[in-house]
């Protein structure tokens, strides 16, 4: 199991796996910080190494985040968006999280569809709600919102929005 290896890795933060910097998040969860340019290659390497399933893919908008970036190693260039993928290795019964920095000026990253076809809907969801483009996705279209919707609601600069409440005045008489 990972416990022994984990204890060592906490000490040396510069440990590398699959060419990505390793860090540890709350609850001893392993996080790999992948460079955006190597997103696809890293996933391909890991898929070949028994990380057979990508269970989840999402993104976080860190606009206005007041704290140091969680579980980020020193020296990592931080950007506004982070794409987060959770991989599962069934033989090892382990999980690992891949995180990639995606800048606001160019919100694109490679699609993992060819490696993990199960990210099809998940990438469409991120595109729909967070406005990150996945290059190489076969059908990157909105999934939850209507096709003609404008904006990406999960971005921090998208207001929650309210529906004005119609109050009725009691009759003057």
């Amino acid at each position, binding site marked *: 199991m990972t416990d022994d290896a984990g204890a060592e890795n906490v000490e040396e933060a510069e440990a590398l796996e699959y060419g990505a910097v390793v860090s540890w998040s*709350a609850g001893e969860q392993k996080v790999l910080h992948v460079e955006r340019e190597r997103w696809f290659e890293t996933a391909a390497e890991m898929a070949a190494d028994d990380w057979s399933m*990508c269970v989840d893919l999402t993104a976080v908008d860190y606009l206005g*985040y007041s704290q140091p970036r969680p579980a980020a190693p020193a020296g990592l260039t931080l950007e506004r968006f982070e794409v987060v993928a959770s991989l599962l290795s069934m033989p090892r019964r382990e999980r690992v999280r891949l995180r990639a920095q995606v800048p606001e000026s160019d919100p694109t990253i490679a699609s993992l569809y060819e490696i993990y076809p199960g990210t099809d*809907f998940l990438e469409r969801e991120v595109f729909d709600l967070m406005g990150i483009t996945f290059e190489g996705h076969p059908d990157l279209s909105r999934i939850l919102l209507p096709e003609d919707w404008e904006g990406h609601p999960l971005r921090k600069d998208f207001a929650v929005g309210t529906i004005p409440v119609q109050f009725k005045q009691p009759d003057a008489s």
Partner: protein
Amino acid sequence: MTDSRLHMLPRRNAVLRMSEVHAASLADGERLEGENDQTMIVNMGPVHPSTHGVLRIMLELDGETVLRSKPIVGYLHTGMEKTAETLTYVQGCTNVTRMDYASPFFNELVFSMAAETLLGVEVPERATWIRMLMSELNRISSHLLSMATNGMDIGAVSMMIYGWREREEVLRFFQKVTGLRMNHNYIRVGGVAADLPDGWEDDVVALMEMLPPRLEEYDTLMTGQPIWQDRLQGVGVMSPDEAIALSASGPLLRSTGIDWDLRRDQPYLAYDQVDFDVLVGTCGDAFDRYAIRLNEIRESIRIVYQILDKMPAGDYRVQDPKVTPPPRARIDESMEALIHHFKIFTEGFTVPPGEVYTAVESARGELGCYMVSDGGPKPVRMHIRGPSFVNLQAMPHLMADGFVADAVAVIASVDPVLGEVDR
């Protein structure tokens, strides 16, 4: 490309990649060059009785045969992940519990576990076992609902009545414990909302004694019945490779023969202290998925009996003044307790900065929660990985080259809950 794993999906061309605008234009007789004019695109849903809510599927048909299909979702989208960013951790459970409305306890559980991992609080043993009891009863009620709707879709209409009837008995127990039949907000960060009511053992035993004979009835009504077998066996077949590639989970994954259940393989709560079997299929067809659900009810009954034996005494929520309001009696006598209570329910409690992913085995598969905190009382990001949403991707692959009537069986066997798909 050599890295590509698309070869694991031999039927990937069965996914209809067509925008609604383009599909609508086809109705006017405009065909692109080279398009087959013998096929027809038909909408199934969103208000079709067999689509389990408001799922819409665009089917490309050649006569009665489904060539390609595209699930269209979002009709129930209310931005619950965005809403979660405006709610405190105390309020958060009321939000997530409405996602998978057929198995609400799992939603509350995964949300609470994520917040607890960030907080670093240890949940008392009794709370853990209460959570497990409610989870397993919820798995039973959810699978009973699945039996009911699956039966109705296939034409065993009496099964619908039986399934709802038994489920109602389970929900009655939920009501007794939590006050509500659904959307309980019972599992909360730090424990559960209230201890089990007096005499809960008798209620649970009565429930567990009521169920097995009813399950025998289901076997008579469906499992051994030739029409039922004909409608489900060999329909919607999935290979293990496809299941892995499509990130499937739950009964959909296990029906292909992959032996994977988070309760056993990555134990949470106290699942490592109870004895149960993980059920796997052999053919990966709709019948296997039906049989797995039916027998998972039996396994859950086994687990519930063990929980009855082992339910420890103690506190039902963590006694950490940071996350737990003072007991009701203290509020009458202490001003500080009143203020403390007020603060927790208005401002909420703060959660240390960090990010975490937790996963539980819900009735439908892996239910995950990715949570990012900035040290405030509300999460910065709360993402729910819904098993229904991810499993829905398998539908075009399962429906390909089958009949429209089999498409109905496929939807029922994947058993999506649209509240969770759309969130």
